[in-house]
């Protein structure tokens, strides 16, 4: 094996807020590169407005040049990893592109669930772990205790872990030295057939999908034909280059290096994260292991608040999808909400990110329906159907049985909150698996939980019951049979399809009641009484009544009031237009959203 002694490929793993991006900034600065702000400015200079708005710029995959204390110059490739649990797979692919990882631990907080999850991924990928203890400037910092924790819990030697403050720039050089000294250089033959791992991609409206790659063997250069192993599709390379952090063309990318490949690829779906890129004319016979096609786990309907924004919503989703191959969507129609889309996400956070981007970046007012998972339904006729929209569930008497997805959940929490968390998990049909002490005052709770119990407000409740101290992670385990029913909501005796959902039989009553109460609060009074009913099949399990409106009158209207009152009335009429008509009942957008947060 040929070693590339002057290269180090590494990433940073850390819990959210433990200082990953600040450390990255410091490393970049201290090697004489640009500051983050300058990077952003510089990159934006080359970008058109559309990209500026639509795309999260990948700032932190960057090549650093560092002159070490041994007098030699090293190329350090710092590879960014996505920050949250839904992207475990993406994280694992980023890790696979590296030989080592900096494990950043907050000197006052210690190890958290996410740190652990990512660390296990790093260990699975045989990375050399270099612990770094950050935030030593905080008065509450206990670096020695955290060192001990790292050794006890993770079994990693932390005796000479750099003690740093990324915020204040303390001991940053120690980190760079540790990278050079501890992380092994990459190896691989430059003259073997091309074998490169795609660990990220983004869509550029001029050059198509750009692949971020780690070359393991061979080399890639402009003019050569490349092939994506999973799809067999071939493309001609236009350009290759490195991240300085602006995309800077180079002649070729050789084994051991990290960079980008532009090949006029029309769709990010053709450059899938985890896939192996090889030479079309001389393909490798050993593609990189670990490629997985990601499937959506959580679904919800997304509708424009204003029906005339339907096309704008479609365009926005298409644009998001260009850059996010894990987002899926297809058109659907709801009697209550009109035309919209059923969207699939990797997980809850992914869903929230997409919703937020639609609203913030595309300035769309959207209504989302209750999130759903995919249920597997065995019908009496022997068919098995996958249901991601409760509306499509077959009639109860045509169902033999139903299965729901189960996840392994791990919750890291201070011992004082173990009681409330166990209670919460039990409420959510969790099955206790294990409890491990991380240290005297902290444990990891392992539960098997139905995914449909955590897609509502599990995070929020978890946070509130632990005053924000719990951290949480989950991974898909498999499908399990369950006693599930479809709960429908009727307004003035008319079913509202967008409010239907599938729920465990034992929880249907409580959920039905909670929803009916919530709707009572969020639907304004009408000129007539409006009954709200929650039903399973023909059986009413909860009922509330919105009393008839008795007062809608302006007491005062004199000369100085007329303009304002006219405008108020005009606004009232506009507000009415924005309501959704369900039979004779006008339902505000917020009512659909309010049932998503029941606690």
């Amino acid at each position: 094996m040929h070693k590339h002694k002057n290269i180090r490929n590494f990433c940073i793993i850390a819990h959210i807020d433990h200082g990953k991006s600040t450390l990255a900034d410091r490393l970049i600065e201290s090697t004489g590169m640009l500051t983050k702000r300058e990077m952003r400015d510089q990159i934006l200079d080359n970008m058109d407005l559309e990209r500026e708005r639509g795309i999260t710029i990948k700032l932190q995959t960057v090549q650093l040049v560092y002159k070490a204390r041994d007098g030699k110059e090293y190329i350090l490739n710092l590879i960014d990893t996505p920050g949250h649990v839904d992207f475990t797979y993406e994280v694992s692919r980023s890790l696979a592109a590296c030989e080592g990882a900096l494990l950043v631990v907050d000197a006052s907080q210690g190890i958290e669930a996410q740190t652990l999850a990512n660390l296990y991924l790093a260990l699975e990928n045989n990375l050399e772990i270099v612990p770094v203890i950050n935030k030593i400037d905080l008065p509450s910092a206990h670096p020695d205790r955290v060192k001990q924790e790292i050794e006890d819990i993770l079994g990693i030697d932390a005796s000479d872990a750099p003690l740093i403050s990324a915020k204040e720039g303390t001991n940053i050089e120690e980190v760079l030295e540790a990278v050079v000294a501890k992380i092994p250089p990459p190896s691989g033959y430059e003259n073997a057939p091309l074998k490169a791992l795609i660990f990220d991609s983004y869509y550029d409206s001029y050059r198509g999908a750009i692949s971020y790659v780690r070359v393991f063997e061979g080399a890639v250069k402009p003019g050569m034909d490349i092939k994506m192993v999973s799809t067999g599709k071939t493309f001609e390379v236009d350009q290759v280059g490195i991240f300085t952090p602006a995309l800077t063309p180079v002649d070729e990318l050789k084994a051991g290096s990290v960079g980008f490949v532009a090949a006029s690829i029309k769709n990010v779906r053709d450059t899938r994260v985890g896939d192996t890129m090889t030479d079309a004319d001389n393909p490798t016979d050993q593609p990189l292991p670990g490629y997985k096609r990601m499937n959506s786990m959580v679904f919800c309907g997304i509708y424009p608040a204003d029906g005339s924004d339907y096309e704008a919503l479609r365009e926005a989703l298409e644009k998001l999808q260009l850059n996010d191959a894990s987002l899926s969507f297809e058109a659907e129609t709801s009697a209550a909400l009109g035309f919209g889309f059923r969207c699939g996400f990797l997980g809850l956070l992914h869903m929230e990110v997409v919703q937020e981007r639609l609203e913030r970046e595309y300035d769309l007012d959207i209504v989302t329906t209750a999130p759903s998972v995919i249920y597997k339904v065995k019908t009496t006729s022997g068919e098995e159907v996958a249901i991601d929209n409760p509306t499509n569930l077959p009639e109860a008497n045509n169902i033999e049985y139903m299965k729901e997805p189960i996840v392994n959940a791990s919750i890291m929490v201070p011992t004082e909150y173990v009681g409330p968390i166990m209670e919460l998990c039990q409420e959510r049909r969790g099955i206790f698996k294990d409890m491990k002490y991380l240290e005297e005052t902290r444990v990891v709770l392992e539960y098997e939980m139905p995914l449909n119990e955590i897609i509502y407000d599990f995070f929020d409740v978890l946070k509130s019951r632990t005053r924000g101290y719990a951290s949480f992670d989950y991974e898909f385990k498999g499908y399990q049979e369950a006693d599930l029913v479809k709960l429908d909501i009727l307004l003035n005796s008319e079913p509202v399809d967008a409010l239907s959902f599938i729920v465990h039989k034992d929880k249907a009553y409580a959920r039905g009641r909670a929803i009916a109460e919530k709707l009572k609060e969020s639907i304004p009074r009408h000129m007539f009484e409006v009954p709200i009913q929650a039903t399973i099949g023909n059986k009413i399990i909860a009922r509330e009544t919105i009393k008839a409106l008795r007062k809608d009158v302006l007491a005062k209207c004199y000369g100085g009031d007329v303009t304002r009152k006219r405008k108020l009335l005009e606004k009232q009429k506009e507000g009415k237009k924005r309501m959704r008509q369900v039979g004779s009942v006008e339902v505000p957008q917020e009512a659909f959203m309010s049932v998503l947060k029941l606690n």
Partner: protein
Amino acid sequence: MECSLYVHIPFCIKKCHYCDFVSFPGMEDMQEDYVKALLAEMEMYRGRTLRTVYIGGGTPTCMDPTFVSRILEGIGLCFDTSRCVEASIEANPGTLSEEMLICLKERGIKRLSIGLQSWDNSELKVLGRVHDREDFVQSYRRARRKGFDNINIDLIFGIPGQTMESWSKTLEAVTDLRPEHISCYSLKIEEGTEFHRMLSEGVIQKPDPDLDRDMYHYAVEYLGNKGYGRYEISNFAQKGRECIHNLAYWDNRPYVGVGAAAHSYDGGVRRWNTADIHRYCNMLKKGLPPVEGSETLSADEEMFETIFLKLRTRWGVSFREFERRFGEDIRTLYGEQLKGLQRDGLIETDGRGLWLTPRGIDLSNRVFVQFLI
């Protein structure tokens, strides 16, 4: 053409908890400048013929009587008041001194509108009023003695903590005094008021709309029995004692408004003055109109305003008058809407016009929006 004059006095002793009018306590130093500015602004309308005059606020009578006198004198000098049929001023209990009443009487004020709000002293405290009911009775009697024979009393219902019982007590006590006119306003908590803050802090509860309507219906019936007919949503009067000035608003007729934040309407354009007293005075010092904004009403807007203003009154919209003003038959314009409103029991109509039913009054905003095209 005859028009109405509104004069705004943005001063008061203390801001009440429900008050969102343009009114500021503790600005006594400004009063002299303000009166000068008012007179200067009136000059801009010199020569108009006034049908009614209304001096509102704030509390106009919290000013020094000499200032009030100068304003009233100014009106007489600036405008043709020979055909003026009504001149009202708003007053609060405690501000109607002998001296003030003499000044008002001498300067031609014919009608007093006194803000009592509640007969219950603890409710007055909740409202943040500076007077109690004894102050009121004293002021009222003094005014009667000075010969004021056209007095309105303002009341509020839906006050936090108010019960049906205390409301009926207020109505009883007030009608016993036999004022010519009574206004009953449903409390609305407006943004920026002390009540709004108290509501957000949970100190008071949101008024209960059901209790509010019960109180209102009670008032309509009680006052009706006592000889006070409801002639507008919140206004009740003995026969022939309706406020002519306010009727002009609900008739959507032109008016001139002077003073900070005052609005003027000439039939096609509505203008409003700056609400900033300093700015108001400064602009007039420079000889500039103190106008902050204006809107030119489209034909549709004028029509809509006419409908919703007229529908507030007992007489409603007359088909013939409407057609004379807009050249169209309201029944043709809004055929569908009228049918629906009638079906829902919100309006009534005969061959000559249409008006709100009692239910239509309670839900009048729902009725009005039907006339927005």
